[in-house]
């Protein structure tokens, strides 16, 4: 089935050690999102790509970066993870174009732990 795949499901890194989370999609959607979700909270949008156009949320820390080398893949880079960055990171996609409303499709997330 077409879907949004996140790897790995669980990631452990050390304080201050760069980490990259991956997302791939087979839906051919032109928008890809990264969310941070902490325990018992709603997903918080970090940034999104509309095709190659990068859109950063105003309150996303500079520590978080993203790359989208092609339609199918998107990466979240955390340059120097702090303890407060431990969370579930969710990738989502959405088709866009024209006058249409479509829901987002989410992956099952990567749970990041910081030692």
């Amino acid at each position, binding site marked *: 089935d077409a879907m949004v795949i996140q790897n790995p499901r669980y990631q452990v890194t050390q304080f201050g050690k760069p980490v990259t989370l991956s997302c791939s999609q087979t839906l051919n959607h032109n928008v890809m999102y990264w969310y941070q979700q902490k325990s018992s909270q709603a997903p918080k949008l970090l940034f999104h790509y509309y095709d190659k156009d990068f859109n950063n949320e105003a309150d996303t820390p500079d520590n978080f970066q993203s790359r989208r080398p092609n339609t199918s893949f998107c990466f979240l880079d955390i340059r120097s993870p702090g303890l407060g960055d431990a969370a579930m990171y969710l990738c989502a996609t959405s088709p*866009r174009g024209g006058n249409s*409303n479509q829901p987002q499709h989410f992956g099952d*997330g990567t749970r990041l732990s910081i030692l």
Partner: protein
Amino acid sequence: GESVGLHLPTLSVQEGDNSIINCAYSNSASDYFIWYKQESGKGPQFIIDIRSNMDKRQGQRVTVLLNKTVKHLSLQIAATQPGDSAVYFCAENICYGQNFVFGPGTRLSVLP
């Protein structure tokens, strides 16, 4: 900025009863709304959506009601089952925009 909020953070219902989960939104420009279900360890899963030109939409065992006058959205689940236990989020979108704003979520617990 404006945001979507929920009145009840937790809801417990008996198996077989109907559940109603509520959501208040504050942005009158929002014109598309989605309900997601999130089970433990998984990503949010689409349940049902509604556009602002509608006030009711039904799916399988679920109904979404939209009251634009009071900026209120609700999700009704008929004959609630143990598998319905999850956190439910509403999300809003403005004018075919790319951003979705999520509410804080309601945890639904189904009692045997």
